């Protein structure tokens, strides 16, 4: 199976702190990879390196076989949903979508579908400062999925979402995966990752502790589910 995203011996140092040390794994095309790890493990940093928000100290990242370096064109294929984001509060969802259209220079083919899917129609012209945290997070989801990207990078995507919106988002992620999109998602909710992911990568202290399927992990750790399997890995790391 070909890989859409490949991290090759990635190291990232901030000052004297090594945040990532030799991270090396690939994500198969058309699969969902869950990135798991305790707070401060380096998950968000790894996502930022993939998006070009930061540069690795050493190593390389390949997207569709091409090295991600200084050029920005590869990001046209990526939809990014950050962990609860503060966007300009006086703007409306319609204006934010217009910004993304203006920045990308063309309109998506499914303009209204994504707005309806995340039930944003009634709020489309309402300033963000008036919207609830959950509705704002739905706006974030719409911004990430607006262009039907072939790569989705989602950082704690269901944080702050109500049950219906969370289900809608997960259904959308699965549908996009079935259409061939590759997804990299972080979450602290293990049941959510069990629902969504084909594989998981466990990151601890900036190093990869495990990469593979959830079934293989539960089998290896002799645990009944992902949450217990990850807890078991964390206990081993501490020991």
């Amino acid at each position, binding site marked *: 199976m070909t890989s859409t995203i490949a991290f090759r011996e990635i190291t990232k140092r*901030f000052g004297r702190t090594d945040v990532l040390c030799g991270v090396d794994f690939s994500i198969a095309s058309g699969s969902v990879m869950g990135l798991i790890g305790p707070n401060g493990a380096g998950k968000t940093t790894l996502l930022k390196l993939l998006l070009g928000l930061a540069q690795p100290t050493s190593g390389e990242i390949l997207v569709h076989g091409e090295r991600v370096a200084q050029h*920005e064109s590869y990001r046209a294929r990526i939809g990014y949903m950050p962990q609860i*984001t*503060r966007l300009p509060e006086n703007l409306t969802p319609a204006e934010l979508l*217009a910004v993304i259209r203006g920045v990308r220079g063309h309109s998506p083919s499914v303009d209204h579908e994504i707005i309806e899917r995340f039930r944003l129609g009634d709020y489309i012209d309402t300033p963000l400062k008036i919207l609830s945290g959950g509705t704002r997070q739905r706006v974030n989801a719409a911004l990430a999925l607006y262009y039907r990207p072939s790569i989705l990078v989602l950082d704690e995507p269901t944080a702050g979402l109500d049950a219906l919106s969370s289900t809608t988002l997960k259904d959308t992620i699965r549908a996009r995966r079935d259409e061939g999109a590759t997804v990299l998602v972080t979450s602290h909710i293990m049941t959510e990752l069990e629902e969504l992911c084909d594989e998981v990568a466990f990151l601890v202290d900036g190093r990869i502790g495990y990469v593979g399927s959830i079934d293989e992990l539960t089998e290896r750790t002799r645990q009944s589910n992902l949450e217990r399997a990850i807890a078991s890995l964390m206990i081993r790391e501490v020991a």
Partner: protein
Amino acid sequence: MNAVVGTLARTQARDALRSRWLFVYTAFFVVLSEALLRFSAGDANAVVSLATVTFTVVPLGALVLSTAYVYNAREFTELLLAQPVRRSSIYAGLYLGLALPLTAGFLAGVGVPLLARGGGDPALRGAVVTLLAVGAALTLAFTAVAFLIALSVEDRLRGLGIALGVWLLTAVAYDGIVLAAVAIFSDRPIERPLLALMFANPADLGRVLVLLQLDVAALMGYTGAVFARFFSGAFGAIAGAGGLLFWIAAPITAGTMQFRRKDF
């Protein structure tokens, strides 16, 4: 200006125009200008007072509001950086989206009360136009300085502290430093170094340019007096304008470079 810069500048400007702080900033200058024009002993005195207050408040407003803006917009900036766009275009869009509304706020705040009086004394029009132009230039310059600070310092409180420090240095302590230098080196020819020191502070440079239009050198600080002696007339205006343009271009260039290499 490319399409990305235009889109971002318009969006950010729209956000700023709907915000309370820009209204308060503009209203401050309206009230200040109106009060000085109404209660000063003559229009010349009003313009001198307006210049003095303006060139203290404009750097403060631009530094504090812009530094806070960059920190507050960090997550939006990251969302933009995840799009297929050059970093320099994002920087330009964000900068113009704040600098232009701030400049418009200043121009409206000072300009409208003057226009309401038919432009005031015709003999003072040169000084008034210079005041507006210098105020706009200082807004652009100190906004760029604030961007550079906020992009260079990760910690928000430290960044705001440095911005306030820059304001204290340029708008408050500068004349004192120059006077101390004059006192210490009074037995040496220090006119050239003093000249360089004047160009090192855009707020002082701007104040001198306005006061030169009014021929009130006696009201100027020591630095201004020296500047007037060296650069009275057209050459002084051109040299001063060049200095201000440098103070706009240099921090914008440094800020763009910092933005392009920064890890978010």
